[in-house]
């Protein structure tokens, strides 16, 4: 008498059934993939339309750029991701920031001779706008900050030091540690700082204060004023407000090291 379900025949049948299921499974997966692919295509087309429609907007309006960046951040996308990629290419935002980065480098290089490679965001903004001329697109400080972050990521020696509600942009890889940074922040108010002020505000030993100030002198970021009443003052050209609109003189241009 034959028992059902056992024996070579049953095994073969089972194997066949499994195979059919597998086939079905892969058919199912194929289906899904085909459907996803179609969805992706549609998505891509929509995105292309969006990009071309808003590319102009992206270039023209800093307001739009901020909102756009925030939107991207929410969905976990970095439109400025380096290297070739779907997003940067698709949305064409990269071009704008790349060009801005180049402009920033130019401004910083032109003034490095004067301020040692340290410039306020305000002055940088002022000069970038000036360089772009009357008919150029509007550039906000937010744009500058993003472009600088990109430059920093690319290892161009750029950095940003928060001071008094804004930033000091560093374009030379001078070694500035926390001590230096905090003294710069102190100097921001008046454009200069003294040993006493440092000791009073930061509660440091005299030696520590002098060490930092010496470093700033050495890096060409600060100049010594020994005729100040009371004690020497250390002034930073980067924070000298009268310099804000002063163009680089021909003499200064001649002195710039290539």
């Amino acid at each position, binding site marked *: 008498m034959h028992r059902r379900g056992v024996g070579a025949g049953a095994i073969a049948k089972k194997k066949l059934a499994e195979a059919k299921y597998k086939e079905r499974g892969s058919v199912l997966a194929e289906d899904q993939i085909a459907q996803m692919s179609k969805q992706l295509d549609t998505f891509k087309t929509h995105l292309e339309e969006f990009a071309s429609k808003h590319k102009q907007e992206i270039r023209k309006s800093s307001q739009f750029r901020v909102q756009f960046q925030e939107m991207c951040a929410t969905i976990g996308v970095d439109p400025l991701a380096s290297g070739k990629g779907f997003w940067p290419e698709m949305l064409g935002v990269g071009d704008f920031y790349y060009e801005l980065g180049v402009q920033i480098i130019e401004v910083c290089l032109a003034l490095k*001779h004067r301020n040692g490679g340290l410039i306020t965001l305000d002055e940088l903004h002022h000069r970038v706008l000036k360089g772009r001329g009357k008919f150029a697109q509007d550039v906000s400080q937010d744009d500058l900050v993003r472009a600088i972050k990109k430059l920093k990521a690319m290892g161009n020696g750029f950095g940003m030091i928060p001071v008094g509600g804004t930033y000091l942009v560093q374009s030379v890889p001078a070694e500035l540690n926390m001590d230096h940074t905090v003294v710069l922040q102190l100097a921001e108010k008046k454009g*200069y700082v003294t040993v006493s002020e440092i000791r009073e505000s930061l509660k440091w030993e005299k030696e520590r204060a002098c060490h930092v100030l010496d470093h700033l*002198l*050495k890096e*060409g970021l600060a*100049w*010594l*004023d*020994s*005729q*100040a009443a009371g004690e020497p*003052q250390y*002034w930073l*050209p980067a924070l*000298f407000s*009268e*310099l804000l609109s*002063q163009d680089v*003189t021909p*003499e*200064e241009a001649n*002195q710039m090291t290539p």
Partner: protein
Amino acid sequence: MSFEWPWQYNFPPFFTLQPNVDTRQKQLAAWCSLVLSYCRHRKLYTLDVLEAQESPVFNNKKIERKLSVEAIQVVFEELRKKGNLEWLDKNKSRCLIMWRRPEEWGKLIYQWVSKNGMVNSVFTLYELANGDDTEKEEFHGLEDWMLLRSLQALQTDGKAEIITVDDGKGVKFF
């Protein structure tokens, strides 16, 4: 026309000789530029060191900073090295300031001469520097010592010859 001061002029540390070598180089270069352009503006050809200390160039009353005598000497030494300054005495108390070199003056004078078709004419030094004809020219008022050097430069170039005219000196242009 008022003189335009460079940004450094209102920057207090500009009047302190900087301890950092690189910064000092920039500072001295800026000082040299400033001294030369100020002298050019005021048509000064000589400077007295003691007087200079009180001149607005080295003494910015507005920010209450002035360059010390030692620092002024350092600036002057820089100018001397660049060929823009010559000491008139061993004590270095007075100097000639050449914000334009003799060759450059010579060229300007010769340009004026040829432009007015006066090549082959003879001029006394006085006529050149102080005559009515040259009133509008930059070299008008040029001091004798500089005028002579400029003409000597032209002479070397074969463009002029310094001659004696009456009791003084004159020049013929070719």
